[in-house]
């Protein structure tokens, strides 16, 4: 990875920009955008492992995000321990859920998996909305005032920024490593055609399952980071369909199944989202989702490879096309 960094000036510049962003932008508004961006990039990169690399399009990843988001605040509410202690709980539950969904639905075609994920996510959302133990429709709250650093309740956005950045780097480094191993080839073969992959000896079902579990792990961590930072979670912000939509749209916009696709997608979408929310005011959320729907349809119809693919095609065609 170090060698790759030295070879690629764009990567080096991006790394520097990410490191110094909160130092340069000291305004709380911009720092908040930075934190939102990192969280979106983490979730979408986690989705990307199963949705992009393995080609199994989940439209209900909010279930893992929500489980991860509820776990820390539930652990805090029940035991009084620091919310952080709930992160592994969320990961374990998320993985169990991944196994429970993957096992039956990976036997069938890809559309079935998509259908199963959206139905299970909705089931959990409605169920959490009626379950008093997890606060029903009101949800759960974290410690109002931090009792120490381990509660991770900082007044400034900066500590969150660097924690999120560290998680993103770990996730991308892991994805980068896996891409180059046998598992990465298995993933690509599975995505390209399951029957052909199977006939070449690729263990298709277990490859899809491993991808889903890994994806669920990091999506759950993303959820935990969100709820620890926000100090609050309810069924809609944890399990709502728009949580899933955002992961899908960001990954697809940048380029699903590529290492930096979700990162680039988040780089485009988060500022766009902030801008539309500012333009349309509080009542603009509906318009934002119309915009999301439109973007998704356009990507599906015209640019399934996303921004990265478009850029590669434009640059590889040479300068002549640019002049025209």
């Amino acid at each position, binding site marked *: 990875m170090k060698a790759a960094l030295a070879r690629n000036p764009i990567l080096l510049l991006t790394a520097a920009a990410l490191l110094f962003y909160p130092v340069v932008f000291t305004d709380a508004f911009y720092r908040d955008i930075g934190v939102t961006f990192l969280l979106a990039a983490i979730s979408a990169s986690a989705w990307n492992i199963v949705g992009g690399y393995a*080609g199994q399009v989940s*439209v209900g990843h909010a279930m893992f995000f929500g489980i991860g988001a509820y776990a820390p605040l539930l652990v805090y509410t029940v035991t009084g321990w620091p919310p952080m202690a709930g992160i592994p709980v969320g990961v374990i539950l998320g993985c169990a859920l991944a196994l429970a969904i993957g096992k039956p*639905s990976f036997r069938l075609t890809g559309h079935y998996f998509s259908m199963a994920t959206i*139905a299970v996510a*909705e089931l959990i959302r409605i169920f959490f909305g009626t379950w008093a133990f997890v606060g029903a429709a009101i949800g759960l709250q974290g410690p109002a005032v931090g009792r120490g650093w381990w509660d991770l309740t900082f007044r400034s956005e900066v500590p969150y920024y660097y924690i999120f950045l560290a998680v993103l780097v770990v996730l991308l480094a892991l994805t980068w490593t896996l891409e180059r191993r046998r598992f990465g080839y298995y993933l690509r073969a599975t995505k390209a055609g399951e029957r052909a992959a199977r006939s070449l000896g690729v263990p298709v079902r277990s490859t899809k399952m491993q991808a889903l579990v890994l994806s669920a792990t990091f999506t759950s961590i993303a959820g935990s980071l969100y709820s620890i930072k926000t100090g609050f979670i309810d069924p809609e912000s944890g399990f709502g369909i728009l949580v899933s939509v955002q992961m899908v749209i960001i990954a*697809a916009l940048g380029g699903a199944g590529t290492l930096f696709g979700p990162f680039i997608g988040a780089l485009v979408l988060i500022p766009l989202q902030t801008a539309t929310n500012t333009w349309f005011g509080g009542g603009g959320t509906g318009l934002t989702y119309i915009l999301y729907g439109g973007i998704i349809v356009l*990507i*599906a*119809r015209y640019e*399934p490879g996303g921004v990265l693919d478009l850029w590669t095609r434009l640059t590889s065609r040479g300068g002549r096309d640019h002049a025209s």
Partner: protein
Amino acid sequence: MLLLQVVIGGLLVGAIYALFSSGLTLIWGMMNFINFAHGEFVMLGMYVALLVVVWLGGGPAVFGFAAAFALFVLGVVIYMSLIREVLRGPMLSQILSTFGLALLLRYTAFWIFSANFVSLPQTSLSGTVDIGGVLMPVAQLVAGVVAIALTIGLHLLLTRTTVGSKLLAVAEDRQAAMLVGIRPDRMQALAWGLSAAAAGIAGALMATAYPWSPSVGETFGLTAFVVVALGGFGSVPGALIAGLLIGLIQSLSAFWLGAIYKDIVVYALFVALLWLRPQGLMGKA
């Protein structure tokens, strides 16, 4: 007596579920494609009915046809402009296309009609009727019966007519269908039209009897998934039986457990089905 009313009410709603789910299963069976916007088609059918009643003052027959026609056209247009292209693309595109479409339609409806619940003004179907001591609203009764008739009609269209044979031929083997002079593209466009029309008219029927808001599309879409998963992918008779069954289960769980549990029970049934019999009750393994 109250239980009997709950059972009949459940079956009547179930008949409408069966009608719109048969549209979803038609597309699934023909091109191995799940339309995530199908519930939104039902929702649009409801608003078409409302607009026709408010603007033109048409009766149930008029707005029923209007909803079917409007959605048929929409279905064909969506197929021609979007689905035909993404069918050739990667699976990501196939799933994203209708998923994005669902968001676009749902939130455009929110934007235009607001999130408030609405219902049709009084129609000729208002009032109740006494069937052997059970009081049923006329609208529910008519909507349910018409929905069953239309679902059976769709099944007969597919199995007893030349057009139906052509549709099934394309579903069976696209290449072979082309060899005998069938144009698969036209047949698939027709299937999208029929599928959306079934959703649209189901929406219009639903609108006569129940209030709604733009978010019903999401609920109906998921209900249709459950019905299709239960009845078997691509089977209209399966959708009919499964639709009636889901309506009944929903109605009984609302009666015994409380209204908020009716969707939980149905989705939980879906998860159980996923584990035990993913090919559906009547589907082939």
